[in-house]
């Protein structure tokens, strides 16, 4: 197997019609892709042009109605976020070279005093055992713990769990609150369990959600891929403590679930890795 860095699209056209420079420096590496396969999320902090986050937040604050899918027409600076090479590089890595930015997007404004939102998976319970559909969560202003942050539960994206049955769950050990800085763009697997805390602050919490999908199966890895990354000598005793792609793909257990579930998760992850790279695992 050769060691190679996958080529990125040389000059992809962005949603603002601009030709974009190569994404190669912004592609994820093997461990980052494995971490997404395992945990179901990846956080990007694009270095946006000064003033973009503030402009988006100001436009949202001034909005008198929620424009739904037309949010990018009302807030054109959002296109700069979507077109940023760090965002596109992560999406190419995870969703493929010709990923689609889907039509649906939504501004989630959590007003002061708004209660928490319970755990749920979006959509119906026909879950994706692959990695084909993604949420993008953009936060134009800082989100503090008291502002009702989005909370995600790592490694729940392959669970076919009816939302009603989640109603007996409170806080779960290992949950991750997206307490983030302005400009953060979090990419999650579409089926990742998520909810929000209550907004107990005096500030509105803004988040604009986007959807992305894979348009074709990968023919090869679309990230900075080392074809030997799964074949190196490894310390089996370290298991999930070792930050190498093989150990993480095989042994990571973020929620400390049972052996039975852990084995099933491992099989799903290995299938996805093989689908994304076209390379059989030993």
């Amino acid at each position, binding site marked *: 197997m050769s060691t190679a860095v996958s080529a990125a699209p040389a000059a992809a056209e962005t949603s603002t019609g601009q030709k974009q420079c190569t994404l190669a420096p912004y592609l994820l590496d093997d461990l980052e892709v494995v971490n997404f396969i395992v945990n179901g999320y990846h956080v990007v902090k694009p270095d946006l042009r000064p003033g973009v986050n503030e402009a988006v937040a100001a436009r949202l604050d001034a909005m008198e109605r929620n424009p739904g899918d037309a949010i990018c027409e009302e807030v054109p600076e959002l296109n700069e976020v979507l077109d940023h090479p760090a965002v596109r590089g992560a999406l190419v890595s995870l969703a493929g070279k010709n990923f689609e930015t889907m039509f649906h997007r939504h501004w989630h404004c959590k007003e002061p005093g708004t209660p928490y939102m319970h755990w749920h998976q979006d959509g119906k319970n026909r879950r994706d055992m692959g990695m084909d559909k993604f949420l993008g969560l953009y936060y134009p202003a800082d989100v503090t713990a008291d502002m009702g942050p989005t*909370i995600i539960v790592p490694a*729940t994206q392959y669970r076919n769990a009816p939302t009603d049955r989640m109603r*007996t769950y409170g*806080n779960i050990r290992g949950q991750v609150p997206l307490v983030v800085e302005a400009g953060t763009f979090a990419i999650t697997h579409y089926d990742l369990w998520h909810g929000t*805390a*209550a907004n107990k602050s005096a500030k509105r919490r803004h988040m604009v959600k986007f959807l992305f999908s894979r348009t074709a199966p990968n023919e090869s890895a679309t990230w900075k891929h080392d074809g030997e990354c799964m074949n190196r000598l490894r310390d089996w005793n370290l298991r999930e403590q070792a930050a190498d792609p093989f150990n993480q793909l095989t042994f990571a257990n973020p929620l400390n679930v049972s052996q039975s579930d852990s084995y099933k998760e491992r099989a799903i992850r290995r299938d996805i890795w093989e689908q994304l790279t076209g390379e059989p695992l030993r």
Partner: protein
Amino acid sequence: MGSDNGAQPRQRLLYIHAQTPNPLSAVLEMTIYEPVAGYKVELTAEEPEFRYATVHEALVDGWQIVQFPLHQAEYDDDQIDMVGYEFILQKMEVVDG
């Protein structure tokens, strides 16, 4: 929970999602529902701190299991669904409020 002489005991509920159906296995999630008017449970941004590390610790503290994890459902050895195994426990106590 303070006592209230002459009042009737009420059912305190404790939901635990444990790593396995074994009461000695680790707690992954825990929520108490107090029988008090207006009582609320919510998700929080803080790392949860659980009162008990296992179902067994709750038993030692006087809770009783009223529903064990159910295993009668069809088993799928490929798919995964809920996180952990659900135990429902109760404690009958006189409570304020």
